């Protein structure tokens, strides 16, 4: 039917054609703040969005653009914009759509910073959020208000691993004519391309699996181009006269890329959450091997699940592919390649045993990141989610003894050997506590 390049090829090539002057096969790092205009007319044309091109790296940059175009290609969007971090991506995306007085419906079981932004920061600017369970489309529908401008969630929740039924929530969003914005950091487009299921805007922390090397912070916002901003008068800053460029109407001028046009013209211009060209280069190196890494992540995750679920030291294990996960059937349908490489588990002996485990392992790294090529462990209650209220912790399905494991690409036998070391330390603590 189509001669479009496939996912693995796009991971390597999308967004980059060797430049005619030097023919660099690798993507060059354009470490520059600015670009020499051909003449005053050319400068005016760029400022006025008459032509594409680069005028200042806060707005766009050739190296960053390759990354953006690659992410857009992998997600099947009309455009993508890279940002300094995943949180910059989310914040700027919200600011692109919402104004004071607007409302968001969001998952109650998300990454702590996502919740903090919505629960504590945005209300200071007049944007409020109702939190609901991500696996309950009816509750999401019921929470929608006349001023709701975004439905937001994570496909695979961090760290509780709750799964959102993207097609079902997409239907709710479509009926209410509210854009569905999803944080897809944990799934990556290799596991799921939610735009195909009705999502409208995709948020990424590229720091995680997309980059994969743990060497560069970055984020991206992908525009699905599948939301009609002009259907009614609810999105006046996108589909109405905007203060910039002689009252430009982004919806009329740029059609399916209206959101991206405003994101870049206002979000990047006024807020300035730009990614550095060098970080874009580093993340591009990771993206080249995304399909290979993700397959290995899934293989090692499956092996770790088998190891953990059969181990005497482990009290409980949670992963969406396990039969006792409430979304197990949905996952089989929606995420046939796997449900990510995060596993959460608790040890017999509770929080103290968990602490002993984390301090005893020698191969797995105790740190805040996920999605690295290396295996990582952390105790969310005392770290990533320590700023979340006790009520929100319970609502988020987080327990005090939870350990979050980000399964890496090492030889699986080395990971399990390392974990045995940790389990022995945990067992000693548990035995001492029992005395």
């Amino acid at each position, binding site marked *: *039917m*189509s*001669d*479009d*390049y496939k996912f693995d090829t*796009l991971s390597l*090539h*999308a*967004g*980059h*054609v060797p430049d005619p002057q030097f023919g660099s096969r690798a993507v060059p790092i354009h470490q520059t703040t600015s670009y020499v205009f051909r003449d005053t*007319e050319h400068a*005016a*044309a760029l400022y*006025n*969005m*008459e*032509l*594409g*091109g*680069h005028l200042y790296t806060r707005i*766009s*940059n*050739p190296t*960053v*653009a390759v990354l*953006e*175009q*690659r992410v*857009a*290609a992998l997600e*099947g*969007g*009309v*455009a*993508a*914009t*890279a940002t300094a971090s995943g949180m910059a991506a989310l914040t700027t995306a919200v600011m692109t759509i919402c104004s004071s007085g607007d409302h968001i419906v969001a998952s109650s079981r998300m990454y702590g910073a996502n919740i903090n932004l919505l629960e504590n920061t945005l209300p200071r600017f007049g944007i409020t959020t109702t939190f609901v369970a991500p696996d309950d489309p009816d509750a999401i529908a019921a929470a929608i208000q006349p001023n709701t401008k975004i439905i937001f969630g994570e496909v695979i929740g961090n760290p509780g691993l709750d799964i959102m039924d993207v097609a079902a929530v997409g239907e709710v969003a479509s009926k209410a004519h509210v854009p569905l914005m999803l944080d897809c950091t944990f799934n990556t487009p290799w596991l799921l391309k939610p735009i195909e299921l009705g999502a409208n805007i995709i948020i990424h922390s590229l720091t995680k699996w997309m980059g994969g090397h743990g060497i560069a912070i970055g984020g991206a916002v992908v525009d699905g*181009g*599948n939301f*009609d901003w*002009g259907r009614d008068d609810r999105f006046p800053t996108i589909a109405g006269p905007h203060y910039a*460029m*002689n009252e*430009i109407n982004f919806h*009329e*001028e*740029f*059609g*399916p*890329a209206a959101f*991206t046009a405003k994101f*870049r013209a206002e979000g990047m211009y006024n807020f300035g959450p730009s990614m550095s060209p060098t970080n874009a280069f580093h993340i591009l190196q990771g993206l080249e091997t995304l399909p290979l890494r993700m397959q290995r992540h899934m293989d090692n995750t499956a092996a770790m699940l088998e190891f953990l679920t059969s181990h005497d030291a482990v009290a409980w294990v949670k992963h969406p592919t396990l039969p006792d996960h409430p979304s197990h059937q949905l996952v089989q349908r929606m995420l046939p390649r796997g449900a990510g490489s995060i596993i959460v588990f608790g040890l017999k002996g509770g929080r103290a045993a968990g602490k002993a485990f984390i301090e005893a392992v020698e191969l797995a790294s105790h740190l805040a990141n996920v999605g690295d090529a290396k295996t990582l462990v952390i105790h969310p209650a005392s770290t990533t989610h320590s700023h979340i209220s006790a009520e929100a912790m319970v609502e988020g399905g987080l327990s005090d003894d939870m350990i979050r494991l980000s399964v890496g690409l090492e030889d699986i036998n080395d990971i399990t050997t390392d974990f045995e070391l940790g389990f022995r330390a945990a067992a000693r603590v548990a035995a001492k506590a029992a005395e």
Partner: protein
Amino acid sequence: MKHELHGEMIHIATGGLDFDNNKPVLLFLHGSGQSHLTWVLQSRYFAHRGFAVLAPDLPGHGLSDGTPLASIEEMADWSVALLDSLQVASATYVAHSQGVLVALDAAARHPQHVSALALIAGAMAIPVNDMLIEMSQHQPDKAFEMMTSWGHGPGAHKFDNTQPGHSFLGYGRRVMAQNDGAALHADLVACNRYVSGPTAAAAITQPSLCLIAGRDRMTPAKFGHKMAATIPGATSCTFDRAGHFLPAEFPLEVNESLVAFLAR
């Protein structure tokens, strides 16, 4: 801007400035299943260089109401009626693909309304195979995907783009999906039935420029060259690496060619 024509509200992109019929008018005509968004990188550019830009959505396309027109001749008459309704005596027709057929027909039958022709990725006839026509009616999403894929050159397939972060393929499919469900089918049938192109082209007396895409799989370059050879006095320029969506793939080059042509 919104404008009422034949009782239907149509959308016309004017490049971000109010339409002023005292300026030289450029009428941009889009192709099958497309809209004013074909001209994103031309409409603002020329509006800010002293021209009055009209990039309408044909009825049933883009942001225009109404029913898609059934023939190239109807589209040509519609374009002239649009100019009349805006008190425009004549315009330079800048046309892409199906729009080239419309421009040829308008130039032949309404020569007083057409002051010059810039014909982009076009031909004197655009036969459409039965499979695509049927697909456009029964599986429009597949037709959008196929045409968007065929319609773009090698750079676009590698997601090279002058607009940072943008995807030609993703954008192209969404532009087509924005139309009335019957629009693409009506357009393809109209193209397939139109046979007056060679006669119309041979009769043209207006200054004409043909911009030809070297990697065009929708209206292959050889047909563009044939058209240029048929139109008396026409000049042409070929963009070797461009696909059918030449105005988007090579916007600066297209615009500079048009600027030179308009300054003749």
